[in-house]
Structure formats: structure tokens, C-alpha cells
């Protein structure tokens, strides 16, 4: 699976601030690329439900929107802090760090 593009958007939270990143994996330092691609593979990202959110949003939690595009498919998942399974939490934290580094 060759990942061509990743889009990450985080909205909401106590401060209501938006954080986002839109990048190709090969734009990242090597030490970030491999763990990210491994995690996407491990998650079977394209098989995750498109909506992994609570019926009613929990107060002040972040809402995350992740889109991964490969040569074969494009898939978007929307989730929140309390509704994301553990493995997906790992991905969210990784993308969050990448987005912050690219912003600064």
C-alpha cells in the first residue's frame, strides 16, 4: 500500500482552536515516516468506520478528521477523544505531533 497523501484536522477542545496538516509521507523525516506508515497498515485504516463518534459530542473533547489517500483507495475517518479505540489514539497523537511541528 503506497500512501500518497494524509490530511489531518483537529477541531473543538476547550480552546476551540483548529489544528491541521496536509502532507505526503515522503515530506516527513525518515524517523517519522516509517512508524506512521506501519501504524496505518496495522490499523487497516481503510476498514475503519467512517464515523467513530459519540451520538452526542462530549463537552470540550477534540474532534478529529483523518483522510488517507493511496493509489488504490481514499478513506476518511471522523472520531473523538473518548470514542477512538486505543490504536487509533496512537495515530491521533502521532499526527498531532506532526501537525504541531509543521506549524511551528
Amino acid at each position, binding site marked *: 500500500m503506497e500512501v500518497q497523501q494524509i490530511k489531518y484536522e483537529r477541531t473543538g477542545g476547550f480552546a*476551540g*482552536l483548529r489544528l491541521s496538516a496536509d502532507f505526503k509521507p515522503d515530506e516527513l523525516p525518515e524517523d517519522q515516516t516509517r512508524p506512521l506508515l506501519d501504524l496505518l497498515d496495522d490499523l487497516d485504516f481503510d476498514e475503519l468506520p467512517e464515523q467513530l463518534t459519540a451520538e*452526542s459530542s*462530549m*463537552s*470540550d473533547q477534540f474532534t478529529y478528521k483523518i483522510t488517507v489517500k493511496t493509489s488504490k483507495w481514499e478513506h476518511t475517518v471522523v472520531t473523538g477523544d473518548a470514542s477512538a479505540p486505543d490504536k487509533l489514539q496512537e495515530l491521533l497523537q502521532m499526527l498531532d505531533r506532526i501537525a504541531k511541528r509543521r506549524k511551528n
Partner: protein
Amino acid sequence: MHKHSPVNCIVPPHMLKNIATKGTEGQKNLAISTLKSSAQMRGQRQALADFSAAAFRVAVVGGKERIIYDARNGSSLPGTIVRREGEPVSADVGVNEAYDGSGVTYDLYQNVYQRNSIDANGMRLDSTVHYQRGYDNAFWNGEQMVYGDGDEDQPVSDRLFNRFTIAIDVIGHELTHGVTQFEARLTYALQPGALNESMSDVFGSLVKQYSLNQTAAQADWIIGAGLLTSNVNGVGIRSMKAPGTAYDDPVLGKDPQPAHMRDYVTTVSDNGGVHINSGIPNHAFYVTAMELGGSAWEKAGKIWYVTLKDKLQSNSNFQNCANLTYQVAGELYGAGSIEQQAVKKGWEAVGLATDGGGTPPPPPSDGCLGSLLRLLGAAPSRSN
């Protein structure tokens, strides 16, 4: 990717709920854990709400009962117990801030509004600190408070946020989400969601003022003062005195809050701008409190509290809140009283009359989110 417990596979949810409320201590814990994990996987945390009062309100006691947990930078909640009610001060400043802040919040609700904890029935106040790494947020998950440490994983020169327990109003804000959950149950989207946020800011600010024994005139009316690092050009996250002026920074951007209905922001982001448009009811409360003077928690706070407890409904909008706070002020202090006039001035300052007129909310143009919420009866209606 996710392993289900055997219980999860064979025991239906209604049975688990029975076990969670009636089983032995060990059975309760297992059932609750299973329900939580299965609900998480289905994205149906709300399914827990109906029985959460019975299952999660672990200790119904006579007075204040706090437990502080440490997530040790992980995501599992609640984490490891690090301080219980009455135990000595911890070496961890975040632990003490969560303990003290939830204590003052309990005191405000108990001493001023005669409310025994979040659920009005002695619910234990659980808080988790050190949630994840680099988690610049705090939230109420329907059962407890959760606090991140800000941008502690970033180089000092890049950090924007300090730990979220640093501001006592943040703690009061999160606990008030719990009060709202047990009272008006304001839907967390669009105007009901912005009212939900505003109620948390109002009582968060009152917790701070109560802890410092400040009058309305002495208070800074800033939400999250101390939360932003010195790298940011800003005094906090929101200003109730002057919404839209809390920060203006090259990295963070500019505070987007409106102070008046004419500047209402229509957006699908942030659940329809719940942290943005809360500036409008926030400012109405500020003006009311300043009109009345003295301790804001006594009269303005009382009017807002009774409105939250007895009047607002899950789909209430700003106009409803204006009308109802005006009505409550009349009931508490008399028709035409200075208190009722202060409420009227507060809402007029943001473009809302208290007789149901005034500048109406803008017509919903929030696309799918608004349509869906209207269908569910959760969004503001087109007429009042």
C-alpha cells in the same frame, strides 16, 4: 485491532447494566468496563448516560469526596489513584490543582446554591491529570474531568499551552459541564451547545471569583488566564468582558468570539461554533453582573443557576435563555426589580430583548449538521 472481552461477546447490554448496578464490586467493575469498551467501539458513549447516574456515581456520601488519578501520559481512564479526599498535599502540582480546584467548585455549588455536587446527590468528583503527552486540552467525558499537560512535549520556545489545571476556572468549567448534563442537558451543538459552553464559562469564572473573594468589578472575566505560555500574545482563551480580544497571535490566530448577535458566526466546525458563539451569552452575563455589582455569584449567578436547573431545555437557544433568565429574575427578586432590569440590560447589550423580540438568531445555514439537529429537535428553531 481490538480484542473484545468474553463478557462483551455473550452478555447483552441490558444485562450488563443490571450487573453494573446490582452486582458485587468485582462484577460491577467488569460490567462497567465491558459496557464502556463496547460503547466506545460503537461510538455510542451516550448510551452510557442513562445508567451512568447509577453505575458511575460510585460514592454517594454526605459531603465533598474527591479522587485524583494520574494517567501517566497514557489514554486509559481514569488511571492510577494519587490523592484521595483528606490525604496530604502531593509533590505533583497538577494533582494539587485538580484537588483544590474541584474542591472550590464543590464549595461554590454547595455553599451558594445548596447543590450537593454535580448531580445534586453527592457524586464523587473524579479527575485525571497527565492525560496523554502533549495533550493541550481538558474535557468532561460524561463521568469525570480529564486534564492534559499542554505542550510539555514541545521545545520550550514552541510551547503555546501550559498544563490545563493551572487555571481554576478551567476546572470549574469542566465540572459545570457535569451539572448541565444532569440538569438542562443542553445539546452540544449550535446555540444550545454555545449555551452549554457559556454556562461552563459563567460558573468557571464564578469559581475563580469565589476562590479569590473578588467583586464583579475586581474580576478579570478572562477564561483560562495563565493557560497560554509567554510565547503567545494573549491573556487567556476567552474574555467575557470583551469577547474577541483574549488573544491575537501569529501562531494561534485571533480570538474569534462575537460579543453581539449581529456578529453571530455560522459554521459547521466545532459543533457549530459552540466555543465561538458562547461569547454572546457570556457577555450578557458579564453586563448583568456588572450592573448588579458586588459578588457576581450571589445574584447574577443565582439567576443563571436557577435558569440552568429549572428552566432551560436541551434545545434552548439564546433567545430562550434571555427570556428565561428575565423570568427567573422576576420570580426571585420581583417583577421590575433592579435584578430583573439588570438581566434585561445584559441581554440588550448583545442584541436580544427579554420579551422574545430583539435581533432574532440568524436563519440556520449550517448545512447537514443543522438540518440533522433540527430533525432531531436539537437545533434552534427558525422562530421563537
